[in-house]
């Protein structure tokens, strides 16, 4: 059974939280959750909305669609004149047009994250099973001196084997295609992953598709 990552759903008392740190964490998490629900409501039902919250420290956070200010001012002035935002500027129209695409990105990314989490659990299970089976796979702290020395020797053998194989490939590759052009290079340059590395161990659920999510503005 996979280890429990968090406490899970717990019933809480609907009164002000006593512990300050707990309160801060709750505020941060719930604020994001609240904005997320508001965003969903806007997308699903096409309504205008404004939410204003003050943090325990006194900082103000607001979420609004199409804009916090327009909804707030509309409330204050109580004018019924422009119930529909017909005066949307072109910039705002562009901005709003990108929302469906962004929603799609977020959904895809969440799914990928779930898949990776499942993969982690699979890998953890494999590790646990192996650890119970073979003494040398146990954590290093659990091994005695004999075992450590033996393991060390084997590891050094492996190291040599790896470097031989690496040299071999290196020589092969430099005769043909430059190695840095291959598909399996992982780019960690801050962009979204261009291509997932092909898993060496075939856990069931990974597939490699190309992520081509840039910051496209969706209109043209």
């Amino acid at each position, binding site marked *: 059974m996979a280890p429990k990552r968090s406490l899970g759903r717990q019933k809480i008392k609907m009164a*002000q*939280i006593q512990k300050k740190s707990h309160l801060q964490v709750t*505020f941060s998490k*719930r604020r994001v959750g609240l904005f997320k*629900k*508001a965003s*969903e409501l806007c997308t*699903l*039902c*096409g*309504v205008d*909305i404004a*939410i*204003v919250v*003050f*943090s*325990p420290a006194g900082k*103000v956070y*607001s*979420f609004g669609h*199409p804009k*916090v200010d327009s909804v707030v001012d509309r*409330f*204050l002035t109580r004018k019924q004149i422009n119930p529909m935002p017909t005066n949307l500027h072109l910039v705002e129209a562009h*901005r709003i047009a990108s*929302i469906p695409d962004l*929603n*799609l990105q*977020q959904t895809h*990314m969440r799914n990928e994250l779930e898949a*990776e989490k499942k993969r982690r659990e699979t*890998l953890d299970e494999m*590790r646990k099973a*192996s650890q119970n*089976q*073979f*003494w*040398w796979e146990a954590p290093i702290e659990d091994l005695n*001196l004999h*075992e450590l*020395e*033996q393991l*060390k*020797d084997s590891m050094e*053998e*492996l*190291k*040599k*084997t*790896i470097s*031989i*194989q*690496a*040299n071999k490939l290196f020589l092969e590759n430099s005769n043909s295609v430059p190695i840095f052009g*291959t598909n*399996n290079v*992982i780019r960690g340059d801050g962009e979204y*992953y261009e291509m997932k590395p092909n898993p*060496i*161990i075939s856990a069931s659920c990974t597939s490699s598709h190309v992520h081509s999510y840039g910051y496209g503005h969706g209109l043209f």
Partner: protein
Amino acid sequence: MTRQKVKLAFITNDSARKATYKKRKKGLMKKVNELSTLCGIDACAIIYSPYEPQPEIWPNNIGVQHVIARFKRIPEMERSKNMLNQESFIRKQVTKTNEQLKKQMKENREKEMTEVMYQCLTGKGSIENLTLPDLKDLGELVDQTLKDISRRIESLKIASPNEAAAAAPPLPQAVVGGSSSSMVVDNVSGRDEMQRGTQTTQWFTDWMNNPSEQNLGLGPNRIWPHPFFPDC
């Protein structure tokens, strides 16, 4: 209540949309209420829908006026700092999820490498299938593991130097070959596997001791700089 995955797009069916609006609006107000109560903070919500001329609000008219008044008192710069619309909010979410994804992928890659390392150690896995970047990562993991092992050995030796003196010096042959007379009789089946596995690498040991290693440029007259183990 059945859990159906709702597609995040405008609901075209009018009655479905209205029903969803009613439910979600109620839920949203509940959430604002909870946030305000649990954290003891000022909050308000205003929703304009096509179904009513008047906005739906929380907590009530006076409450909303109070919060908005406080909101307006904040200088505009500061107000804008944490002001979000749908687009900016979702972008932030995407960035955050992407970071979590990258972190998880990196973690999984390390775990995977650990599996590969142990498989290759016992000869169950073949390193021939690995690409050059894989080999690099694997090499780094082996290096790190060796460091950890050495560190642990040192600390054990410091803790009980008598035991260290009594330990049989492990010869490469003892590891690779078969004589287990000086070994602690332990997990016998596991040990056999270990020896069997390392026997497949024995020919490398022999090969390495062979002076004709100059063929591949290894050894003292190295042709190629060692790409992965610079301290080798």
